[in-house]
């Protein structure tokens, strides 16, 4: 679980630089939430592309999450990257004003997709690519909004567990306040990832690394000393969220079909 952080920094800055260059881009844009993942991504992007080629977009919902807003601005200032703020309240309120709901997951997902819709527009305006900030823990647990925060052009963080992102954050010099605050998707006030998942990231990551990377069975993970309920919950979440890690299935009709047997690397010709 412990990574060689300087080496990982080298790989990920290399990845950001090379993937953008191959696609013909110099600039990267990312949503800055003031949380750990987007801060780490901003640090990496700034090193890879130079601060002037990174744009952080802060997208609060009205006046909520004032502390996070401040943290996001601190990161941008520290890195000297460009930053702009777009309040998503008018768009989200306009929609739910006409289609009201008490379902806070629906509201949270709508906000995540609103933010991504803005990021894609900003990326077109800036001729920039969107840098994803979904980590391996979220991707495996399906703890993300499909076409919302899970969307991006390239994702430098997707093979690092939350625990490993914390290690990388220490190495990169991400402010301690950001490193130690409670992770939240910001879906509603008082929401925390760990509260919603029902287990801590530290626990989830220890279980995930065994189930996924070491391909241990749930029985083997339980035998290694982890609570059966938690192991089964993690395994169930991985299974239930498989669809979030794929492009939508295409009904095969022809001899050669996109998504089935039309097979190329995404960066062919680059």
């Amino acid at each position, binding site marked *: 679980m412990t*990574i060689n952080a300087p080496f*990982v920094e080298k790989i990920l800055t290399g*990845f950001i630089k*090379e993937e953008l260059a191959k696609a013909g881009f110099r600039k990267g844009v990312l949503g800055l939430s003031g949380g750990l993942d987007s801060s780490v991504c901003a640090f990496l992007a700034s090193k890879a592309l130079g601060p002037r080629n990174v744009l952080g977009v802060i997208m609060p919902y009205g006046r909520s999450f004032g502390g996070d807003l401040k943290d996001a601005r601190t990161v941008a200032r520290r890195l000297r990257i460009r930053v702009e703020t777009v309040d998503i309240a008018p768009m989200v309120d306009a929609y739910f004003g006409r289609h009201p709901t008490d379902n806070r997951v629906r509201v949270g997902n709508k906000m995540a997709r609103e933010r991504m819709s803005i990021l894609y527009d900003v990326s077109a305006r800036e001729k920039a690519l969107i840098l994803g900030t979904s980590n391996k823990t979220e991707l495996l647990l399906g703890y993300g909004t499909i076409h919302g925060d899970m969307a991006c052009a390239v994702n430098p963080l997707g093979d690092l567990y939350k625990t490993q992102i914390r290690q990388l954050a220490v190495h990169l010099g991400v402010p301690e306040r950001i490193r130690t605050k409670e992770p939240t998707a910001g879906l509603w006030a008082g929401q925390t990832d760990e509260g919603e998942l029902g287990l801590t990231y530290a626990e989830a990551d220890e279980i995930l690394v065994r189930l996924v990377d070491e391909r241990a069975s749930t029985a083997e993970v339980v035998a290694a000393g982890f609570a059966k309920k938690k192991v089964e919950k993690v395994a169930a979440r991985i299974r239930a969220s498989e669809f979030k890690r794929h492009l939508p299935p295409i009904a095969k009709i022809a001899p050669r079909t996109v998504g089935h047997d039309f097979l190329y690397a995404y*960066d062919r010709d680059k």
Partner: protein
Amino acid sequence: MIARARREKADLVVFPELSLTGYKLRDLVEEVALDPASSGPFRKLREAGRGLDLVLGFVEEKPGERGLFYNAAAYLHRGRLLHVHRKVFLPTAGMFEERRFFTEGRNIRAFDGPFGRTGLLVCRDFLHLNANYLLFADGAEISITISAAPGRGVSSAAKGYASSRMWELMGETVSRLTTTFVLYCNRVGFEDGAAFAGGSFIFDPFGKLVAQAPPFESDWLVADLDLSLIRKARKAWPFRRDDKPEVTLAALERIVRSYDD
């Protein structure tokens, strides 16, 4: 790069696996396949390679074997094609899918090169003990592997990729226990999100590391190889003299005959 190598008076330049095309070809394999005897790129390489030797990777499709595509390595001696090795062991598991797109080579043999008897392997071939043994049994004194091995594992216990250790271990083992120069050229950069591990190396016939490129980063690795070490190592450690390929052959025949599934 060839021009620079010539300026620096290199005798031999080694490029990585599928260096003419890139590694993750999938359905592009048929579009980039070449016959080295007649293809334009090889004509250019024969011209560019005058005065020195090149080892490089490409997709081979011969006129007599249309529709069969090989992941191949070529040895060009001063512009002349001396040897082609077709990758025998095509990794097809986990992140690898070579057997979906390539035909397996069927031969592993050494050839007489300008610096001694030489053998070529492609990437995964090198991790198979029998591939290395066959080159040894066929008299190879210089073993050259071209590779596109991805990097995996970034534990704090290793300075580079955890997966690189396996290649280095094989390099040291083969060079020392077959008293052979081992040259391993691995690429860097990303394809489809996966990074290649770099870390190219050269071991001498005593198993001593002569030169090594860093993990992940591109490098221009130049080394002088003292070819007299082959004779010295083979005198000090007569593994070659004492080898018994006929015992190996007899045992293998027995083992293969005993398959009963």
